């Protein structure tokens, strides 16, 4: 493949990934309102188009036409940098996620992934840890007590749960022996007894999967760990002073992070794009991507389901849960996994 074709293919992949991700983000907001509404025995958005399917479009237009207020007391450079940082880091993380195996279109042979790097998992962890600054700086530069408290809570929570999150992944890494997300998926191919897939969730990483889910909810500031934006205490938390598109950028970053976490969960624990492949060649090429998307959507649905079901934690409960329960459990999981792999 020449360098020209390579750049062209990469640009096409980036454009497609961004379009799909941003559409996904927009429709997740609608799905969330709909599902939570039905859990609470309401209708949810139903005015814009049939079943309210144009609601995200209307929301987007509304955000663009809202007045963009910058309060006079903010520290401008960081106030402007914070939402950009949040959204950039959230969108960049999708670059290393493999959505399918290698495909051939004409003479071009390419993986269904923007960048196949050998440290893919570490790239995602690095990007999310830089993303914390978006939240921290937003709160500090807004110069408001609600923003400040929200961002203090958010950064403390994200730093604490990043440890449990990182440790829950170590078991998977011990099994697959690689940081490359593609290798991790390939290590999960095959079945037990002919029908149970050898996904990591079925090969002893069950506990790690639950540690990952809980830590991921805290990382993305979602209910039941949404204390950084607890509206009953902090108005809206770290983005209290933001309006119009700047607020929308934080909003998009939060949902894009949900997608990253969901993609990572399906790659690490649910076998990524692996699933039964059958039928004519075209169907065989499309099915892996369909399996991947279904796994991600199922994970997103669980996110919304939890939001409609659980109340919010208290802050001391949150910290005690992270440090005194998830952290030791993750360490125990690593030791047992290492022992099993060493004895095998």
């Amino acid at each position: 493949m020449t360098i020209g074709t390579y750049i062209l293919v990469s640009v096409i992949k980036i454009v497609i990934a961004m379009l799909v991700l941003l559409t996904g983000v927009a429709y997740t907001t609608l799905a969330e309102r709909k599902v939570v509404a039905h859990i609470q025995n309401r209708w949810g958005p139903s005015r814009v188009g049939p079943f309210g399917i144009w609601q995200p479009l209307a929301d987007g237009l509304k955000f663009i036409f809202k007045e963009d207020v910058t309060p006079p007391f903010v520290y401008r450079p960081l106030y402007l940098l914070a939402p950009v940082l949040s959204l950039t880091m959230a969108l960049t993380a999708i670059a290393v996620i493999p959505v399918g195996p290698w495909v051939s279109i004409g003479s071009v042979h390419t993986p269904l992934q923007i960048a196949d790097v050998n440290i893919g998992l570490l790239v995602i962890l690095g990007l999310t840890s830089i993303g914390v600054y978006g939240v921290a700086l937003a709160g500090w530069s807004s110069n408001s007590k609600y923003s400040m408290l929200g961002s203090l809570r958010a950064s403390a929570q994200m730093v604490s749960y990043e440890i449990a999150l990182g440790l829950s992944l170590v078991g998977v890494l011990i099994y697959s022996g690689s940081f490359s997300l593609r290798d991790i998926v390939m290590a999960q191919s095959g079945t037990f007894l002919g029908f149970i897939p050898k996904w990591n969730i079925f090969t002893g990483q069950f506990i790690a999967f639950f540690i990952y889910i809980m830590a991921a909810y805290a990382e993305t500031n979602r209910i039941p760990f949404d204390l950084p934006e607890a509206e009953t205490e902090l108005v809206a938390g770290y983005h209290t002073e933001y309006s119009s598109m700047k607020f929308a950028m934080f909003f998009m970053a939060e949902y894009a992070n949900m997608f990253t976490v969901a993609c990572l969960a399906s790659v690490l624990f649910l076998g990524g794009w692996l699933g039964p492949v059958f039928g004519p060649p075209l169907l065989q090429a499309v099915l892996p991507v369909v399996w991947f998307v279904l796994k991600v959507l199922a994970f997103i649905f669980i996110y919304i389901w939890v939001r409609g079901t659980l109340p919010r934690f208290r802050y001391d409960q949150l910290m005690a849960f992270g440090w005194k329960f998830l952290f030791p459990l993750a360490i125990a999981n690593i030791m047992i996994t290492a022992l099993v792999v060493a004895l095998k």
Partner: protein
Amino acid sequence: MHLALFLIFGAVCVGAAINLLVQKHPINSALSLIVVMGSLAVLYLLLGAEFVAAVQVIVYAGAVMVLFVFTIMLLNAGEEEVLPHSSRVAMVVGVPGLIVGLAVGIWVVARYAGLDRIAIGGPQVLNGTEGFGNPSPVAHLLFRDYLLPFEVTSILVLVAILGAVVLARREE
């Protein structure tokens, strides 16, 4: 390409380091330090050490600096106060002293380490060290060749943490 990236990120790194010293407000200094860490990670990447680069971002730019920023935010540290006399002395004595010191340092390194080991014109990977920054070579060094020093260092760090906790604990 390598040379261009090296020059750009080297300049960013030095610029951010100077900015770190010049800035009056602690949060600006902390952010400059994050930029220094980030551009160092890119330099590691140019050397072919992807794993070290990723760890640099996760540990230093991510974890350590978040704690710095967190502390500055929590204490709500204000602008640094500059004493007029001390700063003039620093300008007259410190800056020439710093330049002389740097020149001597570079001369010593160039004289005794040999000029051929200083990569002028961008980073170069010395023969036989390809892939030295990838997970398995790093793990071999840490957990096989230097296992004892590594474990001793970890106990040292643990003692330091315990010491900090004991010192910070308020007397009943």
